[in-house]
């Protein structure tokens, strides 16, 4: 009979990808998702490390293999500095489909934020995330599962948006390209079909239309909501909806308004809080149309310009202009004082 140690070893043996005859050497497991597991491997031919994503679940119909290949192709078609490039795709000797992508050294966004970076650094990183998503939107792709756990911050401050396993091409019929079926509060979820469709994504970060299972309503604004929720969590240090079962969170996403950002973090400037609120509007029509519009408004805030999401008063405008031009005003003042001093001294 198998004791616990032998059983644990056999489970690992049965789960490990068979890399014999390939150009890859297994190093260790990095993580496990819904239908697939990601391993750190050495690409022997090129002498570099890479991440190999392989189907974990048995796939008698070949449906999930087709989805993994589709994910690899979708990602390969999105060449962008903030997206991990795909190097290879194929079938292992054990019959499982895999693809290989760049191995990103660094930390997940939720771990990175725990290192307490300053607010401008947070916002600059967030803009990079938006840029990657905006690029996907421009190519007709919606991510549908944006959350801090799916964003990697590299060693040199680069941001990479990962896990495009439930991404959807805008306008694609039905939901045949959605591969996962998970329902945990913090794990990607596909709830049993509702009247309008099925719930795909991660409850705590998903838009109301996504939580209602309205597959046909999903568009770039669905990702904009998730980006708003991510920015909320980066600035407020907590998720907009962060307690309860998956079902409870789904209900709250649809029905409740999260606490105002400034009520949990009063130091957040009003324009920035307004940007988050607009991105997280319950109604799609009230949100930024695309990730690029959200990114542009955050950049305006960083530059000290007026943001679209916040109609400022005259006093606020004056204060902002003063703050923005403080350096210039100081230089002019210094020049004038110097000039007066020179005139005074030469006049004597």
């Amino acid at each position, binding site marked *: 009979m198998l004791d616990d140690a032998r059983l644990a070893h*056999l489970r690992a043996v*049965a789960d490990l990808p068979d890399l014999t005859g390939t150009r890859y050497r297994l190093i260790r497991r990095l993580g496990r998702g819904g239908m697939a597991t990601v391993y750190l491997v050495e690409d022997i031919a090129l002498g570099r490390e890479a991440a190999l994503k392989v189907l*974990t679940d048995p796939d008698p119909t070949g449906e999930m293999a087709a989805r993994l290949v589709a994910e690899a192709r979708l990602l390969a078609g999105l060449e962008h500095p903030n997206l991990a490039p795909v190097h290879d795709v194929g079938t292992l000797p054990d019959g499982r489909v895999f693809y290989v992508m760049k191995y990103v050294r660094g930390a997940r966004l939720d771990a990175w934020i725990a290192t307490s970076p300053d607010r401008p650094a947070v916002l600059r990183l967030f803009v990079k995330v938006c840029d990657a998503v905006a690029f996907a939107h421009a190519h007709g792709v919606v991510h549908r599962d944006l959350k801090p756990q799916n964003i990697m911050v590299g060693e040199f401050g680069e941001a990479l948006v990962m896990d495009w396993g439930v991404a959807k091409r805008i306008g694609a019929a039905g939901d045949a390209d959605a591969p996962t079926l998970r329902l945990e509060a913090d794990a990607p979820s596909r709830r049993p079909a509702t009247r309008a469709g099925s719930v795909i994504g991660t409850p705590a970060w998903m838009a109301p239309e996504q939580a209602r299972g309205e597959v046909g309503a999903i568009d770039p604004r669905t990702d904009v909501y998730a980006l708003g929720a991510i920015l909320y969590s980066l600035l407020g240090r907590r998720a907009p909806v962060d307690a309860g079962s998956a079902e409870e969170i789904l209900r709250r996403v649809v029905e409740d308004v999260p606490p105002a950002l400034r009520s949990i973090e009063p130091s957040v400037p009003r324009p920035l809080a307004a940007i988050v609120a607009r991105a997280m509007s319950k109604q799609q029509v009230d949100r930024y149309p695309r990730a690029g519009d959200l990114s542009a408004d955050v950049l305006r805030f960083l530059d000290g310009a007026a943001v679209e999401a916040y109609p400022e008063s005259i006093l606020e405008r004056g204060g902002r202009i003063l703050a923005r031009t403080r350096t210039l005003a100081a230089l002019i003042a210094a020049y004038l004082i110097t000039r007066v001093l020179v005139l005074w001294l030469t006049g004597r």
Partner: protein
Amino acid sequence: MADRFPTTHWSAVRGAGSAEPEERRRSLEAIVAAYWRPVYKHVRLSRNRSPEDAEDLTQAFFTRAFEKEFFAGYDPAKGRFRTFLRTCVDRFVANEDKAAQRLKRGGGMAQETCDFAAAEAEIAAAGAAGGGRSPEEAFDAEWVRSLFALAVEALRSECAAAGKSRHFELFRRYDLEDAGEGKVTYDDLAREFSLTPSLVTNHLAWVRREFRRILLDTLRQVTGSDEEFRLEARLLLGGEPGHAG
């Protein structure tokens, strides 16, 4: 991949509801093979029965399941088969309060398949190691162990039938005896079996592929739907035994 054994897609759980008595019997035998050990230990430890009572109840349960077609009532849409079976066992034990009736019903289906003495020895050997688990977790952990043990035995048989007993011996030495402790290396095995290290690598890769395939075939037999099969496989390969529920 050319020399792989064929994959089967037969489900004993679905076969248990067949109108054909022979198909039902074959299905029940597969279910008994996968479940007698978890059922015995569940009755023995969670229901606090003596070894003799647990043995009688286990045999009686499977005999009654065949006679009364318990498993034909399983609906995959309502949950996992192993949860359904454990519930059936609990209900059966609760209703079974006359020892004489048990003895009368026992001695049928499970007797030839089940080595109750071995199971009892495992309980004694495990001692308090299984402490802290709920009855459900203990049942599920034993179910995982049982499936892997069946797969190892099936692998041994298939390798022997295919003239690849040496492949199995490599697997036995490296993955069963050493179990990843690192005391045995591929070079050690190459010397022991008079092979090159690359042949050891290839043989082990082959036998491990077959092991995974047989394990999934075994699992497929005791699940009732593709969805249940997929979810159980995910837990079987990646989850903890105590969290297979």
